[in-house]
């Protein structure tokens, strides 16, 4: 904790110093970089019938391209950073059932984090099913361990009651190890959700907390509260396989559709809108997307961001 405070202090001091010294210059630069790549959508345009192996290989390729399209991870990761990669590892299901993020997408992000200079990359989620089984069956633990990532099981007894100061959520137990990381990369899978209609980037932050069951009484507001607290920097949406019914847990292969798409971006609402369309829904029908735009988390009309479209075949 003390380490974090010190780092935090130094970062803030440096930021404040830079702002006073060259605020104009910095802002100008940021404005420029925004145009070419705040969102990139990489799509596979090759063969439609693919084996699981091919899907994994394509997933890695698309993830690389999508991240390249927003300027690469160097834009977000500084040398020596501790990065938390936050996939959706919610359910004890195999990758073919699309209830969890594609392991190949997660593994590629881990590799790119190390390439960008990260000191430590941690991968973890707060699963709904039994954590040990879910990490295993999702394929994510086995995919990222050989790359040097630390697979972390969140320990609920080490969670900290944290002030969220949202509209509905005031305080909630959060995982300190995630919040203490220098960067959290949000890597959800696009899925149907029985109550919320869709679960995408914003809702994926529910894996950082505990006591989340009462959120269901007002998912849009609670999820928006949590997203504002998490201050998303970069999200990568996995839509390789999407679950279109009986979500979020699924389990029936007939409910899974192959979309072979990976999108990366800094606007979480825009990515969620894209995800909703991939699921065959209207973004305006998804409560959390509407709410997200309303509270200023991003733009629902993702096309206005002129996302870079990358076709891979």
């Amino acid at each position, binding site marked *: 904790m003390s380490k974090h405070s010190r780092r935090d202090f130094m970062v803030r001091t440096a930021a404040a110093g830079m702002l006073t010294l060259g605020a104009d210059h910095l802002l100008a630069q940021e404005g420029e970089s925004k145009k070419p790549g705040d969102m990139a959508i990489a799509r596979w345009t090759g063969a439609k019938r693919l084996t699981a192996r091919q899907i994994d290989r394509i997933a890695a390729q698309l993830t690389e391209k999508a991240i390249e399209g927003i300027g690469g991870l160097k834009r977000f990761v500084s040398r020596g950073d501790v990065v938390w990669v936050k996939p959706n590892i919610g359910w004890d299901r195999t990758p073919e059932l699309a209830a969890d993020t594609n392991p190949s997408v997660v593994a590629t992000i881990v590799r790119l984090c190390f390439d960008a200079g990260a000191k430590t990359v941690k991968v973890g989620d707060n699963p709904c099913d039994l954590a040990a089984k879910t990490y295993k069956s999702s394929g994510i633990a086995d995919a990222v361990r050989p790359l040097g990532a630390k697979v972390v099981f969140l320990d609920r007894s080490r969670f900290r009651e944290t002030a969220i100061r949202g509209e509905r959520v005031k305080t909630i137990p959060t995982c300190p190890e995630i919040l203490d990381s220098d960067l959290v990369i949000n890597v959800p899978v696009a899925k149907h959700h029985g109550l919320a209609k869709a679960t995408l980037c914003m809702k994926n932050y529910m894996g950082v907390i505990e006591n989340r069951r009462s959120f269901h*009484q007002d998912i849009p507001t609670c999820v928006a509260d949590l997203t504002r607290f998490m201050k998303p920097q970069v999200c990568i949406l996995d839509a390789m396989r999407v679950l279109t019914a009986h979500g979020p847990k699924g389990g029936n292969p007939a409910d899974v559709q192959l979309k072979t798409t990976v999108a990366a971006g800094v606007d979480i609402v825009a990515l969620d809108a894209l995800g909703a369309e991939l699921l065959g829904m209207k973004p305006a029908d998804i409560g959390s997307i509407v709410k997200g735009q309303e509270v200023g988390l991003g733009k629902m009309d993702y096309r206005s961001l002129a996302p870079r479209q990358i076709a891979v075949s």
Partner: protein
Amino acid sequence: MSRRRLFWSAASTRRTVQAVFLLLFLGLVVVARPVPETQPSLLLKSFFWIDPLIMVATWLAAHAVPAAALLSLVVVVGTLVLGRVFCGWVCPLGTVHAMAGRFFDRWWPKSKRRDHSSPWQLTKYYLLVGLLVMAVFGVHWVCVWDPIVLFYRSTTVALMPAVQWAVEEGSTAIYQADPGIGPVHVTGVTEPVYEFMRDHVFVVPQQAFLGSWLILVFFVMIVLANGYRRRFWCRYLCPLGALLGILARWPMLRRTVSEDACNQCDLCAKGCHGAASEAAGSRWKPSECFGCLNCTGACSRGAIDFRWTWPWRRQPAAGSIDLSKRAVLGAMLGGLIGLPLMRAGRQSRGGTFHPKLIRPPGSRGEREFLKRCTACGLCMKICPTGGLQPVLTEAGLEGLWTPRLVPRIGYCDYTCNLCGQVCPTEAITPLSVEAKQQVKIGLASFDTTRCIPYAYGRDCMVCEEHCPIPDKAIYFLEIEVQDHDGNRKQIKQPHVDPGRCIGCGVCESVCPLKDRPGVSVFSANETRNPDNQPILPEQDPY
């Protein structure tokens, strides 16, 4: 001449062997954990499979035993040859009693007063006879008191959770206070220890068992009884000890006392674990002797020796058990009287089912289940959600401490079949994961006075989200509700599809209402009891 002078005495060898078996037993308790995508080792059941009492009682009650239980013939043959060495050298509960006895000998010498065998030691034989008579009629209850079962259950249900409580609460308190001097923090030591225990020893966080206090009280009582008489449980009560005692009537290894050398000092009886002799220098009862070899070491004249002989030889002389015919008949009568008393409960007659007696998936019908279940607790130990709990009253006296699923504590995991894999007597039949997913253990039902969408007009559906059935056994209907201020809105109300629900209890487990859930699972529709199936199947699954 004197064996006591030897650096490494026979008793030291025995203590080493005892320690090895005790550690092996405890090690097998600790490693009985769910490991993803790994089948549990058959070794987990080894102590139960070598136990002849479990074999005999299960065979009498159910007329069937798993083939592996025939391994207990090794102990039977071993006892015929060597006497009750299982009690003295192998039995882990016996070792706990031996350790407690040593402690009390040192700090509470009163326990030495009774060195010679007492007629009360016959109690265990009469109990065994009575209980085995009941077993013939299908009451398997004797196994609940088998020492291996008793110790496994006590360790799993009472002792391990106590260790876990201490480690979890202690390390969490230190983590929160974070004491330390400069860069050195106590958590540098406590956190790695805690993390190791969490990842390699504990099964679920904050594991605890309902009614563990009764199991603990019984265990503590029999350990404390060593202060009154050394190895009180083994001498007076143990049903396995009694069974082995009967087998040890004419062992091939027998104690001889040289008449010339013996001066009747009675030192040999001072350290005797089993109180196997009747008086100084007098008859030795092989049925009471644990082969602890304390006597050979204690004798300063080297008068005591163990020698080989044939079972049919009457020399060296071996004292009989001295069972009274009248008492044996009384015990049998007692068993016959106990039988209707035990079975007279409402549930035992069939037709009545306790709504919260949800047995693990694959469990046999209640009557057949009770003929096999020893209440050892192995299924409770390995259950990955910690939902299997010992029954106290729900299954009658006959079902004391047998397992049931308590969904509020832990649900039945959809892709897990461990309980059936580890059950040593196949009271829970071993099933493949696919077969287990077809077994119904109960049926969910909504309490519309509690369930949030029904009672309070808000969306919830956490249960539907967690329902593991691919096509969902919980579905919802959209209805319009009106709140206090007159606003109308659409909400989703959950319903159970009884054809699809398998009763796993995850809905009850995750219901946001933590005091009394809005959805509960009851035993109705359980596959194992055809009489308890009110729902007509949609179509025949077979």
